[in-house]
């Protein structure tokens, strides 16, 4: 198919070394009217420096309130191919592993019913099928779900949980991130597909404090693998690093944030009681150092992007939790948090913002979590604090 629209500005972005998204849209446009008109509309945006997508629109598949994002062109007469250009979010498998057979199957469905354009993957983790019209939604869902695929979350629902590669291919994984993510996803299918919360709720699971899934910045509940006990040291391998040119004093000892390590050219010593498990030494000397043997996770809560009153990072609410199937301790905690959020949360208020508004101690009291010094960087500065009836002598 020849290109329907002239796209001189976009053509410029076919040049250059990095893989080109314009080439991708043009490839799809070889057999897709959607992609043809997407090129035309996008070129116009490049020319006018403004988006040409209308605000929202509620569309979906029967019985679900989530998984499809409605999108309409604001100039459908000019670009009828993208008059409807809805997104279908397909729940990715944990860890983003695929067989080619499974991927081809999704591609074939999408070629038949959609634009042939995807995001592998969206920011939250879903397979994003980018651009189709309303009448194709049910057929797409039937084709996908009959082959074992389901939709992801959107709106005021549990959003599709995601995780790092974890134990599948990483020696630092303290928890089985892929299993935990799968369990969470399966447990909360109803909450994922039928928005019933004040706002979105994201889970992300990281195997260690390196946090390759950015859970601490991007998940309402961040589950980050950690350990108790001593870092395991292979002194012979430490020496190998030194022999092979690593300046252990400068690169490891001097960069340890707690100053809990020493190196005399022969033996590496760690004062484990002062280690905060930041992962620097383990990440840099991965053959020589390994996390301690008692594995679990730190559970943090509350992160979100800047809207409305500023970005938050998740903070510690459970310093250490064992993470073994069936994960009842985790799910019990989630239930208590959601009950608190459900009771007090305002429309479009994330759980982190709610806790800020009502106070961290109020949250702890109502969810039955005991205070712990790991929850704060420092105690309060000012001498104003609440007491309860029980604290008062009558």
């Amino acid at each position: 198919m020849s290109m329907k629209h002239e796209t001189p500005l976009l053509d410029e972005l076919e040049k250059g070394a990095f893989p080109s998204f314009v080439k991708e849209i043009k490839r799809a446009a070889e057999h897709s009217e959607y992609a043809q008109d997407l090129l035309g509309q996008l070129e116009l945006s490049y020319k006018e420096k403004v988006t040409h997508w209308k605000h929202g629109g509620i569309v979906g598949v029967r019985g679900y309130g989530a998984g499809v994002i409605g999108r309409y062109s604001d100039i459908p007469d000019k670009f009828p191919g993208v008059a409807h250009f809805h997104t279908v979010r397909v729940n990715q498998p944990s860890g983003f592993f695929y067989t080619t057979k499974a991927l081809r199957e999704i591609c074939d469905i999408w070629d038949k019913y959609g634009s042939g354009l995807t995001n592998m993957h969206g920011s939250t983790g879903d397979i994003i099928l980018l651009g189709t019209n309303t009448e194709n939604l049910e057929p797409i869902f039937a084709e996908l779900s009959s082959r074992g695929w389901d939709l992801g979350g959107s709106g005021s629902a549990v959003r599709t949980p995601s995780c790092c590669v974890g134990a599948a291919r990483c020696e630092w994984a303290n928890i089985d991130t892929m299993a935990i993510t799968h369990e969470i996803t399966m447990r909360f299918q109803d909450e994922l597909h039928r928005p019933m919360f004040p706002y979105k709720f994201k889970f992300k699971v990281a195997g260690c404090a390196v946090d390759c899934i950015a859970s601490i910045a991007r998940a309402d509940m961040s589950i980050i693998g950690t350990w108790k006990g001593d870092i395991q040291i292979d002194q012979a391998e430490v020496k190998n690093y030194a022999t092979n040119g690593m300046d252990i004093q400068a690169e490891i000892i001097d960069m340890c944030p707690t100053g809990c390590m020493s190196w005399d050219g022969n033996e590496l010593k760690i004062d484990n009681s002062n280690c905060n498990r930041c992962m620097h030494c383990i990440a840099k000397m991965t053959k020589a150092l390994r996390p301690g043997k008692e594995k679990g996770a730190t559970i943090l809560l509350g992160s979100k992007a800047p809207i409305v009153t500023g970005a938050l990072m998740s903070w510690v609410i459970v310093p250490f939790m064992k993470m073994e199937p069936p994960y009842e301790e985790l799910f019990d905690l989630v239930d208590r948090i959601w009950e608190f959020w459900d009771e007090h949360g305002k429309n479009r208020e994330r759980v982190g913002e709610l806790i800020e508004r009502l106070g961290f101690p109020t949250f702890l009291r109502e969810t039955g979590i005991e205070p712990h010094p790991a929850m704060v960087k420092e105690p309060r500065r000012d001498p104003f604090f609440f007491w309860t009836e029980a604290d008062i002598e009558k």
Partner: protein
Amino acid sequence: MAENLPERQTDIGPPHYVQFLPRVIKENYGQWKYHEELSAGVMVHVSESGAKVWTVRVASPRLLSTDTIKDICDLADKHCDGYLRFTTRHNVEFMVDDESKVQPLLDDLKAGGYMIGGIGDRISNVVHTQGWVHCHSAATDASGLVKAMMDELHEYFTEKELPNKVRLAVACCVNMCGAVHCSDIALVGVHKTLPRIEHDKVKNLCEIPSTVAACPTSAISPDPKQKSVKIKEEKCMYCGNCYSVCPAMPISDPKNDGVAIVVGGKVSNLRSNPTFSKLAVPWLPNNPPRWPEVTDAVKTILNAYIAGAKKHERLGEWIERIGWEKFFSETGLPFTMQHIDDFTFARETWRMAATFKY
């Protein structure tokens, strides 16, 4: 579509991941002992059992056609027994279980024009949002900015090493659907003019209490006479959240929308705590298709980091060590009124000490 469709199923969740794991991954799950980075695009993980898996990583524009996905599948069929994966930063990873399979895979990837790299102390794929390709609230394009920026920086993906990883991100508006607020260098689309209230549409399209509540600076109040809302101009910080809630308050302004650059954030706990990115440049013009002002500023920041940072220091750690005042002098970026915080966390950012560098 009247054709016969297969029977739909609901709430089945994603397919179980185990069926998608290559044999060497399945057999050594949880048994990995260490890994080594062999080059910019190849690493090997070694299991307690002695088994090894070699991973080859390639760049992706994230926006992929099904044709390209099928090409990738062809390569995975030929070299990787029909398995592949994607990373959390949208790279594609090919895995093989024998060293002899690495070079033929690399040869085919090179022949196919794939960009191999992104491993180690380099720039990996750029996390980004939809932009003008698919978003109604985009103040800029995301894919275009990524392409323009990475065309200039690709050597740091394929080859050149940096003091540590540099995580780049692009968000097309302040909603920041991506880890932009905790990246080494991030671009974010911003507005700098007021939303325009379409009074005749407000009463049909918007809920007035939630529109008022959506404003972080209390700039919006009800306007009962018009059955609409009004904006206290001097309070508006152009975040666009009112438009997210009320479609009758468009804020796009082609002449004044632009790109801000924030720097020094990270999500990892290595050495220093996870950190938010902070403002380096409040506004640069939207200048598609290549945004030269933006890419120049990014290169300026990156080059200053390369020149000044110690080995293993992330960009934010370098800035923390030298001080933000020094960051502005080292990069030559102007320090403006917009750099001084007057929003939620402002007080924590003012210098409450008499120590600083001239």
